[in-house]
């Protein structure tokens, strides 16, 4: 599904990613953890195609295609989705209008006819249920005045609508209360499957009680310092990130 090879990237002349290697296969869930400022969101944004970041070296292959050649909207139409750590508020644009337009773009890509507003209303009913959101959120402006938790839920609603192949979920769990966390996680679980892959950026092990990762990676200072199975998350919870920095070999050299 996704192969990242020796990826270096910078923003405004500052190097942030310093040689990322990552392979996500179909159906896999990868958790990406690491201290603040280590580059997790940067990696997600680069995969999604944010123009502010410059890839200086390396490559990203998605379904056999050079992802870096594609615009963010093309990536989205080909099934790459990003749930933002800080979803943007867009006054004046209704949530349902945005989701319908996006979904129709994806349908167009798949050679399907667009849905009219009524058809879309039918389509979205189940998706709303999945994240237990009230239909009144559809008529509100995108994220405008939403609470932190509502914004995160709205991201997953959009994911449900677009039904992506590769979902990059950037701290979708932060700011959620226990109930919301359970709802959002079960939504994510329903949206995962054999053909779908997830990269889950998180600081907390608690979401991993609901979503079982196949791999856990720890990013420190722009590199993946350690990778392992889900037990790695528990160890991190216990020992903190210093434990990784202190106990790791980088490229075969003891640090």
């Amino acid at each position, binding site marked *: 599904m996704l192969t990242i090879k020796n990826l270096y990237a910078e923003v405004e002349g500052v190097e942030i990613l310093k040689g990322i290697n990552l392979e996500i296969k179909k159906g896999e869930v990868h958790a990406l953890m690491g201290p603040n400022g280590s580059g997790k969101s940067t990696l997600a*944004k680069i995969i*999604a*195609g*944010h*123009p*502010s970041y410059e890839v200086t070296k390396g490559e990203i292959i998605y379904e056999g295609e050079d992802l870096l050649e594609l*615009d*963010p*909207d093309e*990536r*989205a*139409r080909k099934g*790459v*989705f*990003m749930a*933002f750590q800080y*979803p*943007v508020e*867009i*006054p*004046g*644009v209704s949530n349902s209008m*945005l*989701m319908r*337009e*996006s*979904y129709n*773009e*994806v349908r167009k*890509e798949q050679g399907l006819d667009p849905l009219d507003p009524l058809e879309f209303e039918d389509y979205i009913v189940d998706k709303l249920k999945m994240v237990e959101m009230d239909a009144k959120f559809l008529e509100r*402006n995108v994220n405008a005045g939403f609470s932190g938790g509502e914004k995160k839920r709205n991201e997953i609603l*959009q994911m449900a609508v*677009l039904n992506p192949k590769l979902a990059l979920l950037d701290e979708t769990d932060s700011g959620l209360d226990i109930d919301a966390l359970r709802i959002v996680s079960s939504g994510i679980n329903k949206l995962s499957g054999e053909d779908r892959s997830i990269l889950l950026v998180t600081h907390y092990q608690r979401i991993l009680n609901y979503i079982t990762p196949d791999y856990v990676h720890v990013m420190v200072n722009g590199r993946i310092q350690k990778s392992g199975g889900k037990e790695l998350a528990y160890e991190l919870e216990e020992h903190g990130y210093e434990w990784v920095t202190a106990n790791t070999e980088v490229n075969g050299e003891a640090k």
Partner: protein
Amino acid sequence: MTDISNGNHFLDRLVKSFGPAKPVDDRVEELQTAALKRIAGKELPTPRHEEWKYCNLKMLSREDFLPAAEIVTSALPGRVADYIYPEADHHHLTFINGVFSEEHSKTDRLPEGVIVANLADALRDGNSVALDHLGKYAEWEDDPFAPFNTAVFRDGAFIYVPKSVRIEDPIQLLFLNTDEEQQYVMTPRCLIVGDRSSEMTVVEDHIGLGDNVYFNCPVSEIKLAENSHMTHVKLQRDSNNAYHISRLAADISRDSDYKSYAVQLGAQLSRSDVKAVLTDENTHATLDGLVMVNGEQLSDTHSIMDHTMPNCTSHQLHKCIIDGNGTSVFNGKIFVRQDAQKTDAFQENRNLQLSNSGKAYTKPQLEIFADDVSCSHGATIGQLNPDEVFYLKTRGLQESQTREILTYGFALDVIESIPVASIRERLSKEVERFTKESKSIKQYA
């Protein structure tokens, strides 16, 4: 011989072309004579004048105009009714090139005592409310345009809502300006008086039907007595080659609430001076605006929010979208007089530049003489936020589509506060048309 004084005879020339006014009433005559005196021999302001820094009237001063009433209108649209909002079906006045059209006006189904009429008729009939309030409020220092209107105006709207009467549906004032060979000038005058505890919504539409050059110089005066509520929507969609110079003054009494939403889309040069005076305690005023310029258009808004007494609030959200070589100017003065303790005033001017060649000038001016007040103001000039563009693109929307949506959204939050659905709808369509026609947005397609 060249006329070195350039602008100085413009108003005299226009006034002369109107000929002497027919006497309607002594008080009106007095008012008109005084106004004439004020502008006689006066030059139009030049950019050297602080209030006209970015608004150059040189082109205007060189134009010739005939009084609109004197030209034969040839190009009336087939169905004037298409311009009437469904909610205003039973109460609207239509003016064609500033001249009242009885045929296209309707004022039935109004509560008893309500007057919606041609101002010229009301004055001729000696309506005492009209005579008492006319010319009382539209007053700006050094301003030649309000007196010009006063000196020569004939037709216009007079609205009076009596004590405790509440009109739910909007009253529409439709100013249709036709596409003519001859260049014309019109000076529509509106006087709106809300008595104690009255409530009304008035929508004022200025629509140019062609691309012709004309000069629209309207003045509106609004007087709200205690505890009255008024929503006032103005849509300026004059011809793209027209001049639109307007004056609006609202005098707001105790416990009253005046809300004005002005949308400026048309005219090559549009200048509006708006003023709200909060004359007593616990009054509220809103002066929101939306301006969209493209091509060579210039749109200049100068506002005065005058807090004179304690415990009043004011709200001003003024948004401008600048495309092409367009220019937007905003100068927002807020006065908080010595007695106006506990004033809460909000002002924000946001400018969205779609093109590199467009210009935006913004100047908030707060003059505060009371000590216990809360005034917030902000002004920004910028492009579409790249993070918002990125967010929408990650949802599969193309760049041009994304920019259309964000531009639309930028404009829409002004429109969303307007209480009448069909007005909101029409305005959203106007915004949509603007974004769809934007070359700066299209270049991303």
